């Protein structure tokens, strides 16, 4: 056959990219405070194995280092993530140009999700939220660690990298509108 077995058919409009993952697919997920509790819950025939626990825990640690929010004071960090839940950012040494230290929340567990399309499970780190509960870097909230259930696959998309960036979760935009002016002057579609 010269044609695809299936295709994605719907155009959803401007909001589609943000929503498509949530609307379309929820995936099995489970959260754990540490590697040991994941290993205890793993089964050979379940959707995650002990090996998956280990590899995804390592991934979550890496993602935490890369994408956890950064703050320029311990007080601000604790305000967001709860008292005693923050640590200095080890990667931002005192010689790091900017002067003051950078603080980030402690990784307090991880969220494991079953594979999106037949691959192996994926994970995101979680840290404390002021006022209770936990959150991933991209903002998926979890009420308690050790729970399992369905989570939108979007929850496992990688959050923007904060490591090495100035101490805030988003970049400071200096100017906009520098793209599009050349094409906008034309009367036809930009594509061909």
């Amino acid at each position, binding site marked *: 056959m010269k044609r695809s077995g299936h*295709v*994605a058919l719907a*155009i959803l409009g401007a909001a589609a990219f943000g929503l498509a993952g949530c609307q379309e697919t929820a995936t099995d997920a489970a959260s754990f405070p540490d590697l040991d509790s994941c290993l205890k819950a793993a089964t050979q025939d379940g959707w995650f194995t002990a090996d998956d626990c280990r590899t995804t825990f390592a991934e979550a640690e890496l993602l935490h280092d890369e994408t956890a929010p950064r703050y320029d004071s311990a007080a601000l960090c604790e305000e967001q993530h709860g008292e005693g839940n923050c640590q200095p950012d080890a990667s931002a040494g005192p010689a790091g140009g900017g002067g003051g230290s950078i603080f980030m929340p402690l990784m307090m567990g991880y969220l494991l999700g079953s594979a999106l399309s037949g691959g192996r499970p*994926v994970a995101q780190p979680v840290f404390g939220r002021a006022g209770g509960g936990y959150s991933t870097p991209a903002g998926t909230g979890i009420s308690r660690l050790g729970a399992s259930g369905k989570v939108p696959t979007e929850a496992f*998309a990688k959050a*923007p990298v904060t490591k090495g960036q100035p101490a805030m979760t988003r970049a400071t935009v200096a100017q906009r509108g520098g793209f599009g002016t050349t094409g906008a002057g034309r009367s036809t579609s*930009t594509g*061909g």
Partner: protein
Amino acid sequence: MELLKLPERPNWRDRARDLGFNFADMYGEPYWDEGHVWRFTMGQIEGCIEDPCTELHALCREAVGRIIGSEALMVRMGLPRAQWDFIADSWARAEPELYGRFDLAFDGTGPAKLLEYNADTPTSLYESSAFQWLWLEDQIKAGVLPEAADQFNGIHEALVERFAAICAPGQDLHFAAMKDSPEDYGTVETLGWAAREAGLGAHYTDLQSIGLTADGQFADSEDRVIGALFKLYPWEDLFADDFAQYLASSGCRFIEPPWKALLSNKAILPMLWQMFPDHPNLLPAYFVGEEGAGLEHGHVEKPIFSREGAGIRIVQNGAVIEASDVADYDAHPRIRQAYHPLPQFEGWRPVLGAWMVGEACVGLGVRSDRSRITQNLSRFQPHVILD
């Protein structure tokens, strides 16, 4: 190859609306036209379209390598010198291409002739890969077409595979198109679905909303840094925009890669003809002022940058026999290509759009027009393979 007249699905307008295919009618004219259907044999598809296009893309890659290695040739491409290193670096790093569309003239017999290569910002992807596919499935179910009917349309699956191959697992990819163009948006969202299916994070931003951070990176409408950007916006236009000076230093990865600016450029046509003269799928082509053999029966003059047939003049016996009325591109240098009239089937002149994903030809979409120049008022007519 023949033009069939088939009954339309009674509910196709509802289906189009439900699926968000809101450009099935454009500018008050029908664009999706399933009453006319192009029939090909498997031999025509594989021998005359699929294999030649995969080969043409390989020739194009060879030409890119040659042009990038020669300052004299780079000058001919009409791109700003300040961007040459950016273009050459992307080629040296072997940044992979995602997709493209060859536009071909073909009448079912002789070799298909390359009219031009939309290698950077091809549209009509949604109707080619999705709505055309659905049409075939529906018409087989309805008994209008036999079970054995097929279509050259592995576009969606090829895109999923390609995204997985050229991006890291879970990588975030931004998709940008010009605001308020439903046609462009349809193409971008079709790609976004494929990226998601490949396990990537897909985010949309209007091209005009992209910002520049204090660090010189690009950021989306929500201030998130853009690490990799698919832009449905021509390279030559990006090069002319205010942010052009930040392209190379932004650290952003672009899809299509910058070297595609050399292929989505009609200056590639004389380059190809010079490198591969008399290739059966190429038409004689020259820069204006350097004309050679093969233009005796008339020529088509095109600006090196233009989209949707804009700025094209057809000249026979020294007289302009047809010209498009969109003059937006008239400032660009021009090339002349031998005039190869499109075949006519009951007044319809089809242009075959052969879809490339990566380095392989994976599908077909046919747009037809009643005039000699295919513009953005042409109709998309589905195709079927029936031996």
